[in-house]
């Protein structure tokens, strides 16, 4: 039970006598996790599965994510659904920068994670986490609507655990954490820089 957590036993005991106890952090996180507004922004085939998730059968409205906002100013969540090409990467990073601050990124589909089946393409960025931090990855090509719903619940669990104060507080409350990342420029042969070093630290693989 970390510092600032409410003792669960005490909470259930009080609840039995009709007294509900909560904390500012729980209330804040509860409010934000149940009304995440995704940015209306589809790239390729995964976007069609995202629309199918928003349609009546798999209904993302049950998780509070029904309102797809066209403008990044009103969106909290960017679902990168589809192949990120090098021509589209600067636009995606600019959209991420223009989103209001408590913002999250779901990288949907193999293409957004690592280039997927189109990895050998010359115009395909090998994964969006080279330029912006990603919160939840969904493998699959395209991932089924249930997988997107599971990612949504995963993101809600992640929001629920965010701290408001203390050392490891949420990124958007921490003045040092950057809320903006440099937009790559179009170079002669490739994007310049090919990856944002302080966002993309791949593990050092020793090739035997």
């Amino acid at each position: 039970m970390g510092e600032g957590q409410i003792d669960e036993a005490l909470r259930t005991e009080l609840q039995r006598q009709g007294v509900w106890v909560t904390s500012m952090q729980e209330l804040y996180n509860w409010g934000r996790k149940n009304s995440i507004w995704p940015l209306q922004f589809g790239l390729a085939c995964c976007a069609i599965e995202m629309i199918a998730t928003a349609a009546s059968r798999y209904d993302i409205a049950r998780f509070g994510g029904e309102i797809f906002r066209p403008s990044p100013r009103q969106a909290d969540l960017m679902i990168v659904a589809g192949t990120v090409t090098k021509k589209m990467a600067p636009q995606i990073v600019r959209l991420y920068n223009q989103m209001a601050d408590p913002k999250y990124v779901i990288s949907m589909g193999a293409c957004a994670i690592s280039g997927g089946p189109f990895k050998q393409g010359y115009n395909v960025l090998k994964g969006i986490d080279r330029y912006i931090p990603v919160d939840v990855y969904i493998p699959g090509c395209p991932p089924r609507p249930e997988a997107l719903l599971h990612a949504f619940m995963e993101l809600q669990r992640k929001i629920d655990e965010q701290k408001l104060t203390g050392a490891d507080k949420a990124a958007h409350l921490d003045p040092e954490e950057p809320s903006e990342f440099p937009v790559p420029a179009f170079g002669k042969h490739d994007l310049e820089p090919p990856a944002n070093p302080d966002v993309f630290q791949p593990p050092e693989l020793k090739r035997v």
Partner: protein
Amino acid sequence: MESLEQIKARAEAAIPGAKIDIVPNLGPANQPSLLIDNEHAPAIAKFLRDDPTLRLDFCSNVTGVDWLDRVTKKTVKVKKVVEGEEKEVNEPIEERIPGYLEAVYHLFSMAHKHGPITIRMRTRDRGEGARLPSLTPVWRSAEFQEREIFDLYGIRFDGHPDLRRILMWDEFEDHPMRKDYVQPDDFEWEPTPHDDVLARAKQHYAPRPAEQELRPS
């Protein structure tokens, strides 16, 4: 629909000086094509479109093809003196065909509803001389496809209304669909390498002599 030979004869009759020859297609698809020379290409195209019996008014598909320098082995009958007496002997000689870029047009007729007539145009070489006359004034559908061929193969189409890059960003310089295009090396992290992708990933990690010291490992 008439055979390609008849079309070739009538086209050469209609357009003086036009040099057309027939490129055979060996596969079972049996779709031979007409190779037309670049100077008379627009005139031939107009003829194919406006000729009452042909009426090829629908240019369905425009494709760029990159043929590298090829070395073909051919056996040629050569008279040679073998052990003192004259004899025909098959001697394999290697013939180097210089590379060229090619634009292939598949033409159909919506008026008469008959099948594909394929015409091809070849550039002089793969470097500076990669120029072809544009057929957009004849068929408007070739506009975007010729821009794509210029973008990905580098054939400059003279007479095209708006020749710009269509798929790659404007600052991009090479022509990526050519056979000798080398991709930028952004394979530094390759968790599940497989065949040639593994090769590229390995090549990325291979210690390059010159810059190895520069980059702090």
